[in-house]
């Protein structure tokens, strides 16, 4: 839809901060009592349009636009995990992702078990009580494996483990 004020057909680029209409409104925005933008470190109207469209395309409930693939992976990991957490990941990840999980994250107390992405029993067996997330690419690029994450209800729920897929769920198109 064209923009209401000027009829712009493309999404306007908001390279700006956002003036608070009142002190009360500023406090409400910071306190998340109202929706709106404070400054682009956290949200931005142009980015919000992209986020809504990507969420719609992927059938997701929300999206966050970040500066790079590494930033996305970092954000997922630091949101879900802390020192002592554990990840189960596909062996067929991109080499850069493998480096992060296998060499860098252990320095921060986050360890990873790599499993054959086709072996669902191996995924189940690798999950530990302080589990953080499972990570895989549904379609690994370098050596092709095609793979789909099972619904979470099929995963063990008797422990306090948290199960979260950092991979997008492919849908039949």
């Amino acid at each position, binding site marked *: 839809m064209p923009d209401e004020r000027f009829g712009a057909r*493309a*999404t306007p*680029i908001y*390279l700006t901060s956002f003036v608070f209409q009142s002190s009360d409104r500023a406090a409400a925005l910071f306190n*998340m009592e109202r*929706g709106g933008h404070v400054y*682009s*470190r*956290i949200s*931005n109207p*142009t*980015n919000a*349009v*992209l986020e809504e*469209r*990507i969420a719609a395309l992927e059938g997701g*409930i*929300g999206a*966050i*636009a*970040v*500066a*790079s693939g590494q*930033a*996305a992976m*970092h*954000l*997922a990991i630091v*949101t879900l995990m802390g020192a002592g957490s554990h990840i189960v990941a596909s*062996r*067929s*990840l*991109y*080499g*850069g992702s*493998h*480096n992060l999980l*296998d*060499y860098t994250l252990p320095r921060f107390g986050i360890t990873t078990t*790599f499993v*054959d992405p*086709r072996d669902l029993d191996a995924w189940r067996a690798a999950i530990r009580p302080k589990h953080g997330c499972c990570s895989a690419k*549904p*379609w690994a*690029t*370098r*050596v*092709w*494996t*095609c*793979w*789909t994450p099972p619904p*979470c209800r099929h995963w063990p729920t008797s422990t*306090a483990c*948290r*199960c979260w897929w950092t991979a997008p769920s*492919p*849908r*039949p*198109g």
Partner: protein
Amino acid sequence: MACWSIAEPSIGEESGKFRRWTEAYEGFHGMDFSEESRSPPSSCAPAREGLRDFGACMSPMTAFQLLQGVETLPLRMERHIANTRQAVAHWSRTRQSPTSPTPNCRTHPDHALAQKLLPRGAGSVFSFTLKGGRAAGRKFIEALRVFSHLANVGDAKSLVIHPASTTHFRMSDEALIAAGILPAPSACRSASKMPATCSKTSTAASRRRRKRKGWA
């Protein structure tokens, strides 16, 4: 119950999971993301904590360019996949590759799953091994004209790369084999096939690694 709860029932307090989102978070004046946030905690928490603390935000200029790109994404993906089918068909005719290079091929072990998940085509990446070892791989890659020798996917340009010596070179031979990648030639000399390769990396680290692996 917050309005997003219908979409994310597994996150609520009663599930006993995601306690960081269902208990007071002192980094946000005691906020309970699962009760107080206006959006699902799985997107609110990474934004309000992650973007705030780790500097991962996207520039609005980049967001605009991606918005423009998304509008033609279906057209570009169709062409990517059509071009890939042609390249794979040409490869199969001329080289008689011993392996199925992509799940688009009927003989690939994941073909049935790929047909179900990605019926319009399983992407534009394919992989293969070359007979003739490292020398043949180097000659092959350096002779290509349309395919550029570079490392990142996601561009409109066609590219070629040898993973074991470049993108995946820090992985151990065991990890490479587990990932389905043939490691350094020294580790597979007994095999009749050796990977195509064209490594030109010359950093001290890669020289050390290549020496350790018996390449140099």
